């Protein structure tokens, strides 16, 4: 197994810069390819800390921050966290953090993670008023630890049902939706999904998290949520959601997306990357390993494999790669 320094060397060959080429020039960053690949592979970092939860079962905030820093350092190849974040986010732009609290308080994006990201964003030069934490519904946002607060002087926490949706519909394939204004006001969005089994889609993580940026997600549930790939192809979602810091600190391996403590599992990990398809493929494999370990049937066997992952990788969607041979997986 490679040590962390080796990983950083490898990671450095694929240093990221998430702005578009024009944005890079405007913002004065060093010219760099807008790549999320290493030698033609999509890079996914799985950062793990077995001690993330203390003996009392509570999450250790400092270890969450350290795990985030390790994940970002491994992904960017830059050891200094602030310098690394400066390579990820464009300063002077509005950065959205799409959390996921649909499953309720027991299985929502952990506020410790969201706040750790907010801290690093600010240290990297993003003003508090340019950070937007958002979720579809007020109670989902509350489950993630935040109340709807639209104060531009501080970090904005927006509920879609209060802040509203665009009047005009957007469409791609089977997905015709109205986008949350909280998404459209952002220049860049970082997805903060939480890893869960899903009663229809099989898996909910990076791509499925985008059901929380539309007005009527229930209209996209047909055929095991087959519209996930189409939804992610809607230009505002495809273009703005450029990075994922997946919360795999806690998870439910069956019975999701609601909270079922009897199926709770603590992978104590973050899954990080730009390629949402590669991230979902990686998360799916983790979930399947846990189900097998628990003596459960695979998602395929129970009739709900997350087929949307392969769809998202196909020629009609081109959202990323799902071929393990084309995923550069870094476990740190």
């Amino acid at each position, binding site marked *: 197994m490679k040590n962390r320094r080796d990983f950083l060397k490898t990671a450095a060959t694929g240093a990221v810069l998430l702005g578009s080429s024009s944005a890079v020039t405007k913002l004065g960053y060093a010219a760099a390819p807008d790549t999320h690949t290493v030698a033609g592979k999509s890079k996914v970092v799985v950062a793990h800390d077995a001690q993330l939860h203390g003996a009392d*079962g509570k999450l250790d905030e400092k270890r969450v921050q350290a795990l985030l820093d390790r994940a970002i350092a491994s992904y960017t190849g830059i050891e200094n966290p602030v310098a690394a974040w400066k390579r990820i986010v464009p300063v002077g732009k509005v950065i959205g953090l799409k959390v996921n609290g649909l499953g309720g308080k027991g299985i929502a994006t952990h506020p410790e993670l969201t706040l750790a990201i907010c801290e690093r964003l600010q240290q990297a030069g993003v003003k508090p008023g340019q950070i937007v934490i958002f979720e579809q519904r007020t109670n989902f946002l509350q489950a993630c630890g935040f109340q709807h607060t639209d104060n531009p002087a501080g970090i904005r926490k927006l509920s879609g049902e209060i802040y509203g949706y665009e009047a005009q519909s957007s469409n791609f394939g089977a997905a015709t939706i109205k986008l949350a204004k909280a998404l459209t006001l952002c220049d860049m969005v970082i997805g903060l999904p939480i890893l869960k089994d*899903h009663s229809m889609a099989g898996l909910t993580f990076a791509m499925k998290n985008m*059901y929380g940026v539309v007005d009527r997600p229930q209209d996209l549930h047909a055929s095991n949520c087959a519209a996930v790939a189409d939804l992610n192809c809607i230009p505002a979602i495809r273009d703005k959601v450029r990075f994922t810091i997946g919360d795999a600190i806690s998870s439910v391996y069956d*019975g999701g*997306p609601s909270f*079922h*403590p*009897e199926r709770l599992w603590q992978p104590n990990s973050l899954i990080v990357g730009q390629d949402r398809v590669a991230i979902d493929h990686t998360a799916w494999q983790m979930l399947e390993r846990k189900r097998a370990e628990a*003596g459960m049937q695979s998602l395929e066997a129970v009739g709900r494999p997350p087929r949307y992952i392969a769809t998202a990788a196909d020629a009609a969607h081109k959202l990323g790669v799902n071929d393990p041979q084309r995923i550069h997986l870094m476990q740190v």
Partner: protein
Amino acid sequence: MKIDSKKWMFAAAAFAMVAALGIAGCRGNKLNPFPDTGAVKGWQKTAETRTFIAKDLYEYIDGDAEQYLAAGVVSTSTSDYKYEGQLEAVVDVHTMSSPDGARKIMDTGKTADAKIAPLGDAGLAYSQSIIFRRGPNLVRIVAYASTPETPDALMALARGIEAKL
């Protein structure tokens, strides 16, 4: 005219009385299975009860709503609780169109580590949650932490709810 006026007054008074009794009767029959603060020792009701009719269930459990709709859910009510100021829990009461619907949901979610709980028509207990059904009602209580007190505390709250069903 005078007689007619008296008749109208009498009719109006009688109508008002019947209406008032009717409203009171309806209130009396309306299901409120959520124990108030202190009704079950140690438990505090920390939120207003929210009720979602079937067509709005997505607002509460989007992604899970379909299985409840397929089982004939009529409405779902929910409230938050806290035990001894520490242990947080949520109570969901799903009212189905028939007992079969409640049975279907309960059987679907059953896992190997479930213990039989003597509640309602049937009940299951886990270390951090309890589910039971009584008639068309399905009750699920979930704690957000597992402590040595959790199972007994949840059972006490479940009994408090059962008594109100």
